[in-house]
């Protein structure tokens, strides 16, 4: 703290004191016999005068020195005091230096505190509130600390306390006092104060120099901070206040439940993500109550509304739920603060809520099956549009219904699957018009003389852009949408016209089997009339067409299937059972099966090769043979398969070993060969 002014004062006072000394010495030499001169001579008065002057001057010098000291102290005090009233960083370093100069730094305790989320408070409430928060923390710190403790503000929101002659118990007591006072403060305050702390004490066993103490305390503090964050405490306490519903005006809320509406939710999520700490982990969760419309019908809308209110209140009270909104009816979306470690923990957390809610609801309202279904989307990139996140979570939620799960986590695969599904659904009709679908056939070969005795019509979808979509991708989708009917009819027409051409030309006819989707069973009349119409348009011997119905379709609707098959057989078409053995056909139903042909599923062959045990297949073929039907085996891929089947009573083989599927038009040449 040396500035020009103080140096000048210092020099001045030294000069004055030196002058006083000189005058005193001069006076002593000059007036050594002054005591003798009593009679008020001029010498005596001269002496007294000089004495008086020296006295005044020395008094002045002392006064100057004192005032200088006073000014100095004042300046120093000002320079070392922070606006909060405790020491600033310079003073901290000075104090550390002083302690470092002592004999040793043993028994020095060093504590460090850091305010959490000061930045968020600054951003959301303004800097004034942030400053107030710092001030109040300092007050609390002072309350908790002894007068002897050195308190300092080390950085923006970092504070230190240095305690000399410290022990573990003194430090612990200090921390405890601080914790208590912060707790009482938080109870009566809207902006929550939370802090991380760490301390280090230098002892004989663990000896630290001052800068090492600082580092150690800092390290411990950050460990503590991390711990708080991973517990999710830090985020919830602060952010939930930031996301305080009270602060929202009614227009931004959902009228029924009082939650945010979708637009506000989107903006709130956006701002939370923007302001969140780097490694915080959030997820968007979309939940709905399974079969809620039945509750509406069953208990009336009032009761259902109450339930929704209950649900939203419950949701808002969850500590990790930061913001929630009602998208529509019983669909809710909320932003959840997830544990950092693993996704599973987060999923478990949400599962727990859902079960708790279901339990509570079934308890209070006598509904046994009130299930909450949730789709979870873990936010990986905070810069993504929030709408997209919500969409993703919603997709996952919808997917819970298809998979009979209560919770589904969104993944890239899911979005890919959904995209593909959408592509299939939306491009099917056009694909059909643009003739993107092609009918392929795979020949069937007689076991006895290896001649071609028939073929199975298959469908291939080659998009115009060159993409190839596999049947096992698009057929399940088309079955769900019902478009499979059009596709089947398309195939039938192709097959009928092909056979008709050959018939007209007088060539030999090969029976072609076509697949019948299970949906046709529900619209049997339409199916039959379509087939009859085809038959009229392309008259061919009906024995040339085999309709293949899968086992699962047959078993699921066994009565309708019987009727259906009867009708087809009345028209003299053959009916075959596809994929026999892949579903749940019981042996009892074998007897009543009205099929002309049974196709063994390819898994039989594959498994008998893999497990080197063909007894089941052989026995089964024997058994089925007794029913007087033609037996076809699918999936013949190796010569071993052929050898095996030749030993049994299998009639027809089909598989890659003989031929891959090829376009229908090439069947001619194939038969010729």
């Amino acid at each position, binding site marked *: 703290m040396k500035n020009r002014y103080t140096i000048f004062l210092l020099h001045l006072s030294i000069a004055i004191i030196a002058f006083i000394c000189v005058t005193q010495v001069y006076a002593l030499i000059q007036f050594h016999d002054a005591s003798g001169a009593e009679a008020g001579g001029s010498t005596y008065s001269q002496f007294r005068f000089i004495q008086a002057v020296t006295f005044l001057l020395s008094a002045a010098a002392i006064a100057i020195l004192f005032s200088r000291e006073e000014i100095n102290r004042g300046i120093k005090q000002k320079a070392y005091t922070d606006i909060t009233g405790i020491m600033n960083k310079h003073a901290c370093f000075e104090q550390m230096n002083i302690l*470092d100069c002592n*004999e*040793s*730094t*043993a028994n020095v305790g060093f504590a460090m505190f850091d305010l959490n989320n000061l930045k968020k408070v600054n951003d959301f409430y303004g800097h004034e509130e942030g400053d107030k928060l710092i001030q109040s923390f300092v007050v609390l710190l002072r309350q908790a600390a002894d007068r002897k403790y050195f308190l300092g503000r080390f950085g923006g929101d970092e504070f230190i306390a240095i305690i000399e002659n410290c022990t573990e118990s003194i430090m612990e007591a200090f921390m405890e006092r601080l914790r208590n006072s912060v707790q009482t403060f938080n109870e009566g305050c809207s902006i929550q104060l939370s802090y991380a702390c760490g301390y280090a004490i230098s002892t*004989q*066993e663990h*000896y630290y*120099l001052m800068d*090492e103490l600082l580092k150690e305390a800092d390290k411990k503090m950050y460990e503590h901070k991390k711990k708080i964050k991973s517990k999710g405490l830090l985020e919830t306490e602060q952010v939930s206040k930031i996301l305080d519903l009270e602060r929202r005006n009614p227009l931004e809320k959902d009228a029924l439940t009082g939650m945010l509406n979708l637009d506000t939710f989107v903006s709130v999520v956006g701002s939370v993500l923007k302001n969140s700490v780097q490694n915080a982990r959030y997820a968007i969760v979309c939940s709905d109550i399974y079969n809620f419309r039945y509750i509406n019908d069953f208990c009336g809308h009032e009761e259902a509304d109450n339930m929704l209110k209950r649900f939203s209140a419950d949701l808002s009270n969850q500590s990790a739920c930061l913001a929630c909104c009602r998208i529509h009816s019983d669909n809710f979306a909320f932003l959840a603060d997830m544990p950092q470690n693993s996704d599973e923990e987060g999923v478990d957390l949400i599962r727990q809520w859902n079960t708790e809610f279901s339990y509570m609801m079934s308890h209070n309202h006598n509904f046994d099956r009130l299930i909450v279904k949730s789709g979870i989307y873990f936010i990986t990139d905070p810069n993504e549009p929030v709408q997209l996140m919500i969409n993703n979570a919603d997709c996952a939620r919808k997917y819970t219904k298809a998979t009979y799960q209560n919770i589904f986590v969104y993944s890239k695969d899911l979005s890919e699957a959904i995209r593909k599904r959408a592509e299939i659904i939306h491009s099917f009709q056009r694909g059909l018009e643009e003739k993107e679908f092609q009918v392929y056939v795979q020949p069937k070969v007689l076991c006895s003389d290896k001649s071609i005795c028939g073929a199975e019509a298959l469908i291939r979808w080659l998009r115009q852009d060159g993409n190839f979509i596999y049947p096992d991708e698009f057929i399940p989708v088309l079955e769900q949408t019902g478009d499979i009917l059009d596709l089947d009819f398309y195939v039938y027409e192709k097959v009928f016209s092909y056979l008709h051409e050959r018939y007209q030309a007088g060539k030999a006819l090969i029976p072609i089997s076509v697949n019948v989707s299970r949906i046709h069973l529900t619209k049997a009349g339409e199916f039959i009339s379509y087939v009859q119409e085809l038959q009229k348009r392309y008259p061919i011997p009906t024995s040339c067409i085999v309709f293949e119905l899968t086992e699962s379709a047959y078993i699921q609707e066994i009565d309708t299937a019987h009727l259906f098959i009867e009708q087809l057989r009345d028209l003299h078409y053959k009916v075959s059972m596809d994929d026999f053995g892949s579903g749940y056909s019981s042996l009892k139903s074998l007897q009543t099966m009205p099929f002309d042909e049974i196709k063994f599923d390819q898994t039989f062959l594959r498994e008998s090769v893999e497990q080197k045990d063909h007894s089941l297949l052989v026995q089964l073929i024997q058994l089925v043979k007794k029913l007087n039907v033609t037996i076809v085996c699918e999936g013949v891929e190796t010569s071993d398969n052929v050898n095996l089947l030749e030993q049994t009573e299998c009639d027809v083989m089909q598989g890659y070993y003989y031929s891959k599927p090829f376009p229908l038009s090439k069947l001619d040449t194939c038969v010729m060969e």
Partner: protein
Amino acid sequence: MPLLMVEVGVKYTIIRVCGSGNERRHLENLGFIAGEVIDIISKFNSYVLVNVRGSRVGLGRELAKKIIVC
């Protein structure tokens, strides 16, 4: 504890050497390396005379403080 607080005539092991880079280098050159066993020969007014690696080294207060022994 720092070397300043040792008792005379006892053997100590150096746990670590702290201080600024130059100080540390200087002390290491003198033979004060973590793990080394040192003998305290005498101690006078925070001036310590030690036997390290067979040589006698006297250390002043400032340097002695930087050597942590046990």
